[in-house]
């Protein structure tokens, strides 16, 4: 029996066990929507803007380790989706984006709602395909899911012209797929792993620096085991939070631009550094020349060879899947008798404890105005550290990263690489759908929230009981902070004027809104919100406008050249 392209597409999604498609209809995808209508295995979530569809699919994926799927129409549907695709690309999130395209015979003729989806998205996808013949559709879908999830994960886009959705052919979904031009390495080189083990065991001042690769490869148990077994200090990047339990004594906090004093000092004073699924980002190492001054040995485990020695030269590169490499490394160390020398390690820990006494995240607890840090501490307490936290971009994002102690992976969902304001709410929708019944919180700022505010409507339609924690400082706080530090207090265009009444706004969408102005009301309001287990509650915390994120490593500065709260 022959099936139409649209039928085939739905069959492919079913074969991939896709639970949700986040999308928005339009002319080029009408036949696909028609087929969606006729079945109920693949559920469609109607967003209010295509950016929301891609972020929701992204949040769904990050919190569930499944592939996020988005479906949008040609032209403006695609261009609206680009921000979400680029966001997923920068953070290596496995997604499949299906885009409608004008019919094959109209391509290139400036047809109505035509845009070169392949060309526009080429720099921000792992790969993309234009399906010109319905006979290629099933194999292309198989390849798309395969590419998205293997190697270094990432978004893959499949562009389907309208006539391909009506053309017919026999359907057969391939069981497996192999591509001669694509063979990601999984196992690390045994010789390199041996070298790494030796370096680690001989280290006097070791440091473990673990990133998003640990989360993406579900290797938290391995990382935790290795760190505890060796007794080493461990730091996480913004993308790696939850990869190692934050309440464990070996954890020294996040590192980087807004990392802890102890983490950054340890990075710059260690003699052996092992980077695990982390890419030496500029927000993490500061000025590369300053970072490179230190004569330490660096081991780097990453599945993507191009991440290795890109910004920082390393001594022992290991290309492979974090999970497999850590398994091998652990077995090798366990099999041998050698253990790190306790004396040196103790001295190193003494040093780290000394750095910890700086208490670099301290803030004014007696303030009469709500401090954002306080809200997050209370949020952590009330959710017992067990919520899924999504965030937008800005100061609130950094405070969430610093003050919510993530003990589990895939609980901290944020846009690190692209830093996309507007990510938080739609991502939370995906998270909530992937984790029904779980507490899902979107920590946001009044500026970021307005960038995808329309999704409040989607939340109502699908009854998503997300808790929105708006740290409302009436400023693009992160921008204001830079202007205060580096632009002579000239707050150019960073004041958020003419803000809506968020309580009324939430109510108008059929949600609950609460405004909180006094520190004493923070805890009761949060408790009240979590009592309402089946409603979205928007908590508008009116916070201190002048609060800054500390520590801070200024742009182009060395990692240890931190601005601390006390210095101002």
């Amino acid at each position, binding site marked *: 029996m022959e099936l139409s392209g649209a039928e085939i597409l739905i069959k492919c999604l079913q074969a991939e066990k896709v639970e949700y498609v986040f999308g928005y209809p339009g002319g080029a995808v009408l036949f696909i929507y028609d087929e969606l209508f006729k079945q109920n295995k693949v559920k469609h979530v109607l967003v209010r803007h295509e950016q929301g569809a891609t972020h929701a699919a992204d949040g769904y994926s990050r919190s569930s380790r499944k592939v996020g799927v988005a479906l949008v129409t040609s032209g403006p549907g695609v261009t609206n989706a680009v921000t979400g695709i680029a966001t997923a690309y920068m953070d290596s999130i496995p997604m499949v984006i299906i885009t409608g395209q004008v019919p094959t015979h109209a391509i290139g003729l400036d047809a109505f709602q035509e845009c070169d989806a392949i060309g526009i998205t080429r720099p921000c996808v792992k*790969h993309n395909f*234009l399906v010109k013949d319905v006979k290629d559709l099933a194999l292309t879908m198989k390849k798309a899911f395969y590419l998205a999830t293997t190697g270094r994960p990432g978004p893959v886009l499949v562009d389907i012209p309208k006539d391909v959705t009506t053309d017919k052919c026999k359907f057969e979904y391939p069981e497996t797929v192999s591509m*001669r*031009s*694509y063979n990601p390495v999984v196992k690390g080189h045994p010789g390199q792993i041996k070298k790494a083990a030796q370096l680690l065991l001989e280290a006097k001042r070791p440091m473990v620096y673990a990133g998003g690769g640990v989360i993406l490869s579900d290797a938290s148990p391995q990382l935790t085991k290795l760190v505890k077994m060796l007794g080493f200090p461990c730091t996480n990047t913004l993308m790696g939070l939850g990869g190692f339990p934050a309440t464990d004594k070996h954890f020294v906090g996040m590192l980087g631009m807004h990392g802890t004093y102890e983490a950054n000092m340890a990075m710059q004073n260690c003699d052996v550094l092992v980077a695990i699924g982390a890419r030496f980002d500029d927000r993490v190492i500061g000025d590369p020349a300053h970072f490179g001054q230190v004569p330490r040995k660096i081991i780097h485990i990453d599945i993507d*060879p*191009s991440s290795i020695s890109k910004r920082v030269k390393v001594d022992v590169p290991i290309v492979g899947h974090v999970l497999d490499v850590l398994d091998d490394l652990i077995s090798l160390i366990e099999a041998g008798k050698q253990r790190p020398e306790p004396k040196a390690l103790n001295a190193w820990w003494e040093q780290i404890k000394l750095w910890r006494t700086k208490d670099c995240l301290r803030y004014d607890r007696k303030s009469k105005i709500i401090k954002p840090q306080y809200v997050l501490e209370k949020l952590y307490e009330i959710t017992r550290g067990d919520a899924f936290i999504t965030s937008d971009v800005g100061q609130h994002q950094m405070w969430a990263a610093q003050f919510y102690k993530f003990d589990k992976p895939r609980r901290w969902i944020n846009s690190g690489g692209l830093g996309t304001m507007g990510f938080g709410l739609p991502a939370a929708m995906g998270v909530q759908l992937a984790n029904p019944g779980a507490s899902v919180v979107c920590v946001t700022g009044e500026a970021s929230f307005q960038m995808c505010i329309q999704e409040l409507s989607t939340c109502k339609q699908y009854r998503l009981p997300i808790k929105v924690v708006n740290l409302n400082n009436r400023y693009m706080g992160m921008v204001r902070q830079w202007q205060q530090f580096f632009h002579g207090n000239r707050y150019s265009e960073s004041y958020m004027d003419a803000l809506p009444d968020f309580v009324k706004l939430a109510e108008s969408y059929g949600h609950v809104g609460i405004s909180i102005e006094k520190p004493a009301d923070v805890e009761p309001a949060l408790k009240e919100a979590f009592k309402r287990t089946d409603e979205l509650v928007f908590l508008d915390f009116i916070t201190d406008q002048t609060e800054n994120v500390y520590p801070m490593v200024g742009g182009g500065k060395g990692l240890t050249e931190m601005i601390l709260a006390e210095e101002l």
Partner: protein
Amino acid sequence: MRHIISILLENEAGALSRVSGLFSARGYNIESLTVAPTEDESMSRMTIVTSGSEDVIEQITKQLNKLVEVVKVVDLFEAPHIERELMLIKVRAGPKDRDDLKRMSDIFRGRIIDVSEDTYTIELTGTGQKLDAFIEALGKTAILETARTGACGIARGQRVLRI
């Protein structure tokens, strides 16, 4: 330093733009780029002449390898290799210049492949430097038009680039 990178890639629409897009997006130099299908029609071979520090060249080869349609990448500069470029050059060839031009072309092992009343078209292959030298020798005033292919290259001896 100058490098010649040879790439085998899937002979698919769009593969070329992925490679050229990579170079522009990451700010790598391209001195020349040539591409044509190989004896196995499902694959193309591309030769890119680029320049950069060792670190940059390392990133270029890694980034190229990362492209899903790229099957294999070699940097020909890692071992002895042969490099050739083809040039077609049309020169002013009035009656009194003809002997000189013929002699010059012979010295450079060029071939005159088209003749008109007052032009010669000469075909010349060699390294880029040799072609440059020929252009220099002819002098700007004589030259009407040049068409160069950009370099292609192959390793010496038994080293081969294939799958």
